[in-house]
């Protein structure tokens, strides 16, 4: 029929599971080379200033961790849902809500806080994100509405809500009408873990999420149910697994983690509530989840890579005047190449005419 064919493998290739992400990164770099060349930049210099120069200083490595923190928190939760075919793409909105509730607590107790304020903000952020994720969960289970569309719509609603708050109730009373809140006091700010950088306590939360996510998936009965529901929903039904409970659990969990990420942004590197708290962490986390093979440890590595694409974009903009939008192009390309090369996991590529019946 055709000269290039896909032949199903007997079983999925274990090697390819690890090789294809690397292949995708290599193809993305190659495409970046061509793209920079086409745009009239010195490609090697551009790639260097994008992917290497930003992490040649301690501060740069710190920024990498700062940006990876929300990505890990969001992606670990999303990945657990994706495994169970729960397509929460509302992490951006859940992160925003966490910033609103967590940051709102900081503002509500401004000037009268104590040691208890930060823990309360963490819980508040988690609850905010979880409540926002509970809406698509409820609408899917009660009304059969696609969580893809509802969770995405709520992203826009959450951003508008944040925008309204920083222009209104949250606005700094002494701030000359700028759309931002007061700067948080010390007792509402996450402590810096690594002197000389902005790495904050949130990084520890991210590591805990990785460990917790791994335990849940690999070592608990709930994790087993999630995997079975994702792979063969019918079998899960015969086994009597409560699929509704898994939908609730995965959405609430991913919402809570995204909420903590949002709270960590306003109480960490930003230090106040502003209209622009996320450069799209919630969307990039989707790429991180897939690139990390929906596995918490893989997600940790993928998040560092994606964080590099954020700070690389900023650095290249300053150093060479490259457009910042190129970050999104790189991120999209990477996911494309990954999805494309994933075919190698389950299929062999064969060249030549169709084989005679063996």
């Amino acid at each position: 029929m055709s000269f290039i064919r896909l032949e199903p493998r007997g079983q999925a290739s274990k090697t390819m599971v690890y090789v294809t992400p690397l292949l995708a990164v290599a193809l993305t770099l190659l495409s970046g080379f061509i793209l920079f060349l086409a745009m009239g930049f010195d490609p090697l210099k551009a790639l260097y200033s994008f992917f290497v120069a930003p992490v040649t200083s301690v501060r740069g490595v710190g920024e990498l961790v700062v940006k990876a923190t929300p990505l890990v928190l969001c992606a670990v939760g999303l990945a657990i849902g994706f495994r169970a075919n729960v397509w929460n793409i509302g992490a951006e909105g859940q992160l925003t809500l966490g910033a609103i509730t967590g940051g709102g607590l900081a503002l509500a107790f401004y000037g009268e806080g104590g040691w208890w304020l930060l823990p309360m903000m963490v819980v508040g952020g988690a609850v905010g994100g979880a409540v926002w994720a509970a809406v698509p969960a409820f609408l899917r289970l009660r009304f059969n509405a696609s969580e893809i569309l509802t969770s995405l719509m709520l992203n826009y609603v959450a951003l508008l809500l944040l925008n309204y708050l920083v222009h209104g109730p949250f606005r700094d009373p002494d701030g000359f009408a700028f759309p931002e809140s007061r700067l948080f006091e010390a007792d509402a700010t996450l402590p810096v873990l690594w002197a000389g950088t902005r790495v904050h306590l949130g990084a520890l939360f991210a590591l805990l999420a990785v460990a917790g996510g791994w335990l849940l998936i690999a070592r608990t009965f709930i994790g087993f149910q999630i995997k079975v529901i994702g792979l063969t929903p019918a079998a899960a039904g015969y086994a009597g697994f409560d699929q509704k409970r898994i939908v609730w659990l995965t959405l609430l969990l991913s919402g809570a983690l995204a909420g903590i990420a949002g709270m960590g942004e306003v109480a960490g590197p930003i230090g106040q509530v502003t209209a622009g708290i996320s450069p799209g962490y919630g969307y990039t986390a989707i790429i991180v989840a897939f690139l990390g093979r929906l596995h918490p440890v893989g997600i940790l590595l993928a998040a560092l890579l994606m964080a590099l694409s954020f700070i690389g974009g900023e650095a290249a903009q300053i150093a060479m005047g490259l457009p910042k939008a190129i970050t999104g192009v790189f991120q999209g390309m990477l996911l494309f190449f990954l999805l494309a090369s994933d075919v190698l996991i389950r299929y062999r590529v064969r060249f030549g005419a169709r084989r005679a019946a063996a």
Partner: protein
Amino acid sequence: MNDLALIGPILAAMFAAATPLLFAALGELVVEKSGVLNLGVEGMMLVGAVCGFAVAVQTGSATTGFLVAALAGAATASLFAVLTLFLLANQVATGLALTLFGVGLSALIGQGFVGIPLEGLPKLYIPGLTDLPVVGQALFGQDVMVYLSVAAVPLVHLFLYRTRAGLVLRAVGENHTAAHALGYKVLRIRFLAVLFGGAMAGLGGAFLSMDYTPMWAENMTSGRGWIALALVVFATWKPARAMLGAWLFGGVTILQLHVQGLGIDVPSQLLSMLPYLATVLVLVLISRDVARIRLNAPACLGKLFHPDA
């Protein structure tokens, strides 16, 4: 009496606001009828919007702009088609990737075009008819793209339900294994459907950037691609209902602009939430009827097909 004078312009604006949604939703409807779920509508609209705008600015020809927008939308869609049809990638993940990629790519292409004004399309004017009170401007005072989008509704319907090619396309969407066994080229048919969906999304995006708000801004579709996806479900995969849905959302969009003009004091950000909340509401109302969705949704929607497997 003052309120009555407002109804005409509001009605006219509603049809215009509905047009990008209608283009995108009709395209996606055909795609889904062939059994493919492309969540990349937002990305394809953005690429169409920026390419159409850039070409229209440079050539001064709106026709060329729209043609290029359709081609750019189709080209973007072809990435999705190759990945999902020939490389058997997950459709949900690939559609998301297409949107993320489209957002970035359109911003990159459009960076030199921010802030450049463009003249919109000329509006139809029929002496007498266009001057009619209330409905005159809405029905007889639009531009050619608005009429084209409405004309596309019966055309898509006729294609799907009155032509052999449409029958085959629906068969592929309902049962690709059977269609394949009958000798139909499942992948080729789906490929063409996805290209059509991309072209329509491109036109919808270009309508926004070249006509509705004639300028380019990053992310200017602001979720309309996703609303179009919801419209297809709302329409239970029927073209005429997609048109009704688009008008409904056009109405909500315009309502949001006029509420403040009517002296009702609500913060603008809260009003801007209306189209998104309406989408959720409409989705809930239609999806709760599980039997109806199951009856109307193409049976192979979102399922992978490999001819050798």
